[in-house]
C-alpha cells in the first residue's frame, strides 16, 4: 500500500483530537497550552501534506506552515506570560480557580 494524502489527514485528525482532549480536560493553564500546540502541529501536518500531494511543485503550504509555527511561538510567549501574570496575583495556574471575573 502506498502512503497517500489520506494517511496524513487521518493522522492529523487524531493528533488534533488528542490535543483537543487535553485542552478540554486539563486544569493547568500550561497543560492547556500544550494541547493547543499539539492541535497547531496537526494543522501543520495537513498544510504540508496538501502541499506535497495537491501542488507538489509549489511551496505555498510550507510557507503557511512556517507562519503557523511563528504564530504558535508568539501564542506560547504571550499565553505563558498571561499564566505568569495570573500566577503572580492569584497564586494558581489552575484555570478553574481563576474565576474572579465570575459573579
Amino acid at each position: 500500500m502506498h502512503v497517500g494524502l489520506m494517511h496524513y489527514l487521518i493522522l492529523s485528525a487524531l493528533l488534533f483530537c488528542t490535543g483537543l482532549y487535553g485542552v478540554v480536560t486539563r486544569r493547568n493553564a500550561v497543560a492547556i497550552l500544550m494541547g493547543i500546540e499539539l492541535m497547531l502541529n496537526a494543522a501543520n501536518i495537513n498544510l504540508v501534506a496538501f502541499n506535497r500531494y495537491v501542488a507538489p511543485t509549489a511551496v505555498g503550504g510550507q510557507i503557511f506552515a512556517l507562519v503557523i509555527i511563528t504564530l504558535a511561538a508568539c501564542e506560547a510567549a504571550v499565553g505563558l506570560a498571561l499564566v505568569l501574570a495570573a500566577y503572580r496575583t492569584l497564586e494558581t495556574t489552575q484555570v478553574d480557580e481563576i474565576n474572579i471575573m465570575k459573579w
Partner: protein
Amino acid sequence: MGELGAFIVLALVTLIPAVVVVTSHNIVRAAFSLVPSFLGVTGLYILLQAEFVAGIQVLIYVGAITVLLLFVIMLTEGGTGVRLRQVNEQVPLGAMAAVWLAFVIIVILTRTVWPVGAGSPPPYNATAIGNAFMTDYVLIFEATSLVLLVSLIGAIVTARGEE
C-alpha cells in the same frame, strides 16, 4: 513498503507521546513528552519532503517552545512537585467529544475526493521557500515581523507586571 513502514513508525512516535501529554499526572513529564511528539511530526515533514520546515520544527518547537513551557512550569507551582489534581470534571465529556470529532472528521475525509497534483517537489526546498517569501509572499513575510514585535512587547508588559 518502506514508506508505509516509516509512516506507521512516525505516526506512533507522534501519537503515543501526545496521549501522554494530555493524560500524564506529572506536568513536567507531560511537557517532556511533547518532544518525541514534535520529533515525530518532524519525521512526517521529512517524509513529505519538506526539509526546511522540518529543520524549523526542531529549532522552534523542540529547542524553543518546549524550553519556554518548562521554564514556566518550573516558575509556577508545577515545578514544586506539589501533586495537584491535573484534570477537571469534564474528562468523560472531553473524551466523548474528542472521539466523536475524530470520527466525524475521518468519515468526512474518507468521503471526499481530493484533487491530486502531479510533479515532483523542488530539489532545494530552502531555496524555493526563500524565493517564494521574497516574491509572492512578501506581504506575509513583513507582516510576521509586526506580529512578532507586537507579541514581544505584549509578553514583556504582561510578564513583568507593574514592577
